[in-house]
């Protein structure tokens, strides 16, 4: 449970308001974007963000002022998504991480050539290709790209947000980026880049 592990604070109403406005609300754009990329639905993402903020406010005494509010909020949002949204959505079942780990540790990684995508092709993708490619990834791969590449979380922060070991963060990122590049490489071919 994310909400009851830190020591209880006793904030006054004024302090609560200051924390909420000063430390929580500044992350609203990142939170909305995370929710949208997870649910891929505007209404669901609004509900998810609102639920998360209300929950954060209700449990504000378990947040320590001055610590990483963004990571704390992202963790609540991620857990709400898993508990409330994922089960009712038609997301395909979870990635088999065992398979991912063994893939990462196998010799296949050595043989596997990075999808032959060129910078020039990438720079010509001025429409929705990047966004579509990201959205097309399985939600667990999508998540690590969002946390790392869009939001700039460190590996140890991602490990805490996702409740997984750092080694798994790294292998999942590696695999996610290769899948993303494969997708983009397909788009580049469609755009006429022969060698993309």
């Amino acid at each position, binding site marked *: 449970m994310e909400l009851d592990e830190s020591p209880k604070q006793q904030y006054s*109403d004024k302090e*609560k*308001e200051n924390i*909420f406005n000063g430390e929580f*609300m500044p992350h*609203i*754009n*990142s*939170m*909305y*974007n995370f929710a*949208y*990329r997870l649910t891929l639905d505007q209404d669901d993402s*609004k509900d998810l*963000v*609102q639920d998360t*903020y*209300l929950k954060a*406010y*209700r449990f504000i005494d378990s947040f320590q002022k001055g610590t990483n509010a963004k990571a704390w909020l992202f963790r609540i949002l991620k857990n709400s998504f898993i508990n409330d949204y994922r089960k009712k959505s038609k997301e395909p079942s979870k990635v088999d991480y065992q398979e991912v780990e063994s893939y990462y540790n196998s010799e296949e*990684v*050595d043989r596997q050539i*990075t999808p032959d*995508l*060129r*910078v020039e092709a*990438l*720079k010509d*993708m001025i429409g*929705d290709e*990047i*966004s579509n490619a*990201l959205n097309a990834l399985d939600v667990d791969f999508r998540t690590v*790209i*969002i946390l*790392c*590449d*869009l939001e*700039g979380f*460190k*590996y140890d922060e991602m490990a805490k947000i996702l409740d997984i070991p750092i080694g798994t963060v*790294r292998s999942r*990122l*590696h695999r996610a*980026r290769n899948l*993303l*590049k494969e997708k*983009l490489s397909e788009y580049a071919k469609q755009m006429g880049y022969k060698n993309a």
Partner: protein
Amino acid sequence: MSNPDQPERKNECPNQRECMEMLQLIVDGEASPEQKEHFLMHHLEECMPCYRNYHLEVTLRELLKNKCTGQAPQELIDSIRAKVIPIDGR
């Protein structure tokens, strides 16, 4: 030396797997200063596949940041504020 066609760059990387891992640490800001210096200042100057991969990774991240982030709708912000303040007892 920014010309990607430097003749002295090798076309095969002898340590592809290690380099891919190092590259990931660097673009994710998790590499030590020494690791960064060795890879960016020395290895990239002599290895074409890593030079290309590095620039691809950097470009991809820039694009992701520019294309896949947005702003929360104002109505959502207003709605959250409106719901939180009553809890506050005001």
